[in-house]
């Protein structure tokens, strides 16, 4: 019997939700666990098998000097390094510090700022090491996660679309919330993958899968303005869970300057 591929899960600054997606694959978990060797997954197991690993799944962003060193080590022991979720891929919600003075942030939350060791910015993994694949989402879609693991184990490219949420709405038969109800929606500039959940629940997309390929953010902003959205609310909209992803960051900065 050939040796099973070794998979490791690593956590950086995050909420644990993306790695939880693995445990939320209730129907697939035992089958997946049968096909791979879960070599390092502290959230689920106290057993640790030494590297190197065939696949490393990395959750979370880099926010401390220690983590900036640790990600180098993770890269060194990993054949393929896959980032899972908005934190690892774009810096996450904690990247909101990148727009402010982090020292001020520390003093708001902590009484003794000198004890806190943190970096100025929350940055995606790819700013530190080479990344083989980035899976989007806050949280990731668990079916996409299984697809990505499957693809890497079988030496093929993952089948995850880079088009917008709008395509998923059309496929799902959801009437456009922006056209039909005048509800501001980030769907036109946001990458598909969630299954267009928000519009199906009568609310606008809030961009948790990050920018789609070549998004026209300024055109969408103009449409939002026509719907009566204030500039400060546009800044907030682009400054969400993927605030530091370049197209969203630039758009929020453009409107911040206009204010």
């Amino acid at each position: 019997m050939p040796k099973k591929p070794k998979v490791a899960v690593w956590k950086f600054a995050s909420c644990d939700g993306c790695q939880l997606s693995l445990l939320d694959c209730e129907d697939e978990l035992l089958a997946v666990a049968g096909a791979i060797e879960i070599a390092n997954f502290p959230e689920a197991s106290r057993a640790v098998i030494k590297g190197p690993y065939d696949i490393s799944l990395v959750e979370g962003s880099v926010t401390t000097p220690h983590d900036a060193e640790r990600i180098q080590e993770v890269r060194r022991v990993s054949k393929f390094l896959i980032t899972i979720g908005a934190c690892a891929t774009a810096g996450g919600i904690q990247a909101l510090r990148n727009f402010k003075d982090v020292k001020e942030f520390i003093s708001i939350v902590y009484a003794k700022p000198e004890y806190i060791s943190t970096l100025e910015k929350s940055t995606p993994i790819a700013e530190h090491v080479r990344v083989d694949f980035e899976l989007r989402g806050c949280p990731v879609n668990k079916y996409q996660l299984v697809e990505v693991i499957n693809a890497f184990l079988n030496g093929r490219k993952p089948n995850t679309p880079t088009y917008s949420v709008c395509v998923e709405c059309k496929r799902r038969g959801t009437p456009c919330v922006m056209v039909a109800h005048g509800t501001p929606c980030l769907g036109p500039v946001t990458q598909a993958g969630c299954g267009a959940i928000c519009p199906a629940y009568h609310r606008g997309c809030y961009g948790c899968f990050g920018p789609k390929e070549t998004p026209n953010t300024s055109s969408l902003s103009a449409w939002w303005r026509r719907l009566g959205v204030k500039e400060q609310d546009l800044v907030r909209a682009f400054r969400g869970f993927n605030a530091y992803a370049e197209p969203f960051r630039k758009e929020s900065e453009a409107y911040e300057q206009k204010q």
Partner: protein
Amino acid sequence: MSRNSKTIRVDYLARVEGEGALYVKVRENKVADVKLKIFEPPRFFEAFLRGRSFTEAPDITARICGICPIAYQMSSCHAMEDVCGVKVDGQLRALRRLIYCGEWIESHVLHVAMLHAPDFLGYESAIHMAKDHSDLVKKALKLKKIGNDLVTFLGGREIHPINVRVGGFYKVPTKRELQGLVEDLKWARDASYDLALWTGTLEFPDFEQDYEFVALRHPDEYPFNEGRLVSTKGLDIAIREYEEYFVEEHVEHSNALHSVLRRRDLPPQSPSLKGRGSTPPSLGEGLGERSGNYFVGPLARYNINFDKLPRSVQKAAKDAGLGPVCKNPFQSIIVRSVETLYACEEALRIISEYEMPERPSVEVHPRAGVGCGCTEAPRGILYHRYRIDDQGTILDAKIVPPTSQNQKTIESDLWHFVPKNINLSKDQLTWKCEQAIRNYDPCISCATHFLKIEIERE
């Protein structure tokens, strides 16, 4: 090092949510030091909530924890509705309880079967356990999935649901749609009864302390979203009085902010937080003897609200070997299973009485002020307080999650638990200590935004 000395060091606690470590020092067969260290990096939620809209709090604070996002959404919604003077009741209130049932089921079963049970049976993980206990693990996975399905149905997805908003929901289900969940929930009810019986057969160390349990208590129901904060040692206060009684204390040995409960037999030392708009008392420096640790979560809820459980659930608890009071934290695994059963029954009750409300949410207009909310997350009370202006912009936020409230009690347990097990081998004792920590189902991802971090570098 003498034969009677040992150091237990768990550099990365497994099967908890987040990154923590344990350090226990034993000298001359006595515990010399216990440190539950948190090295999860800080994420500064309370800081970046400033300047955001009050309507964004449920979606943003959900990201504190991927395991209990509903709890964050509920506490933040209630706090915002408190500021704005809005009450959400009727079927919308019932739907909030219903989605919370889903979260309790998925979170409790995750912990019972996948994180905690392996300790009792001596496996490294549920996946290792599945090789010998395939039926148990498969059944638990199905049960967990039904909890997740309920959250997904009402919330859009199981992690960071999108359908919860200040004032209610974006979309509410029809009566017929909800009926679709009934068959699964009936199966889940039976399965959680079986799970409770099974957990009752596990072997428990003889261990209890004189805890002060704290939970919400509501006159009519087992608590989720509302009630008074009640303890087993006489505390009985409104949620908005929380900060008069609970203080975050700076503990020197761990550099961590621990939440402590003031002693009520002594006059208050810090200025109290009466009325709205005042600032909370400063960190409880020097409270020392004036305050104590306390215990939140399933055990606390159970001990305080046993009489509010339906007869059938009380009977199930009895069948699993529990009385109306349970003080052994290792038996929290039974209590979680009993609460899972309750969540299934409550979900079925809510569905049977459901009528689709006319509107999915109550309109909420911002007004300047301070408001707070406290709800029962799977791991215990989760307190939020916000100050907003008349445009709805958040000026100030405070969030106290269950794990930071239990942290001091966890350490206290270890101080008492280690001496009783001092003759075990180092490996066995280490594992037992881990198990004692997992009794609390600690969620370090939650706790971290509020804890001092000690990062050691050599």
